[in-house]
């Protein structure tokens, strides 16, 4: 594997020395392009008090190509599907090399604070979100309590 670009080293150092509140990202010791990420559910969102595990991978072409980010913790959200894939413009066609790991993770956190059922990835969730918002939010809260437990000792709930 090619040497790790300086930009990735710098980003990693800063993620550790100056972490974003509510977000942690640690590189895997065997592969410094693979990060284990946790994001706290934003306050006053249905995901409040939950801690969600994600994985983030920097492809060879990063920063010309967006990082690949996926939820590992099960989550009830109209823009996140059963496999944890995320529908977020900056991860796809609105990526810019001026963005970084930290800004991308902030965007993901913001997506938790404001679900957008009009641009759905999980169609069933989005439909529920539009038709019966209260029920959908209750379910999101329930799933948060069930799966997004703050304890990190045991393996995170996968799929």
């Amino acid at each position, binding site marked *: 594997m090619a040497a790790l*670009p*300086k*930009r990735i080293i*710098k980003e990693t150092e800063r993620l550790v020395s100056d972490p974003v509140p509510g977000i942690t990202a640690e590189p895997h010791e065997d592969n410094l392009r693979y990060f284990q990420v946790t994001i706290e559910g934003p306050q006053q969102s249905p995901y409040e008090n939950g801690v969600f595990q994600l994985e983030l991978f920097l492809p060879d*072409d990063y*920063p*010309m*190509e*967006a990082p690949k980010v996926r939820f590992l913790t099960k989550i009830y959200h109209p823009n996140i599907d059963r496999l944890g894939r995320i529908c977020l413009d900056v991860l796809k*066609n609105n*990526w*810019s*090399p*001026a963005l970084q790991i930290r800004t991308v993770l902030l965007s993901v956190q913001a997506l938790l604070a404001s679900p957008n059922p009009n641009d759905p990835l999980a169609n069933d969730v989005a439909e529920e979100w539009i038709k019966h918002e209260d029920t959908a939010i209750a379910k999101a809260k329930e799933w948060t309590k069930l799966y997004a437990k703050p304890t990190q000792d045991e393996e995170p709930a996968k799929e």
Partner: protein
Amino acid sequence: MRIEVTDVSLVSTWAWDIPKDLSKGKHGVADQTVHMEKWEDIQNEDEDAENDEEEYEVCGICRNRYDATCPSCDYPGSGCPIVLGLCNHNFHVHCIKQWLSTETSKGLCPLCRQGFQLRPNVLINKMHHDEFQKLLMSVRQHNIPMGGGEIDQDVMDDGFIR
């Protein structure tokens, strides 16, 4: 005493003269002082590259200083001039060319998402400039079916399609 000079070796160093805040147009009077400060900083803090991002303007793509090695360079400044955008955002030529060659870029500046154009009258060397125009041209061509009227207008302005 009499000495005879048999050989002279010139040693020179250089740095990009970049005002700290181009976007706010602090040109003119401030320029010279900024230059002097920067020059000293560069000499004193060469090893101390840790605080690059706070202390200096860095390339918005690779986040290295303009006068440092970009990831595609073999040595500092190796054929890697800085490219000044019309939108006042500047990049290493290697970095911005690599970005504009991707499909995702849609020919846009990574920082402000306006169509990236070279700032007129501030030319990088001729070869790079021509190559760059060619690249921008092909990016725009590629984007005409998807893009809006603005891009078409750009093409018109360049005399590419009449």
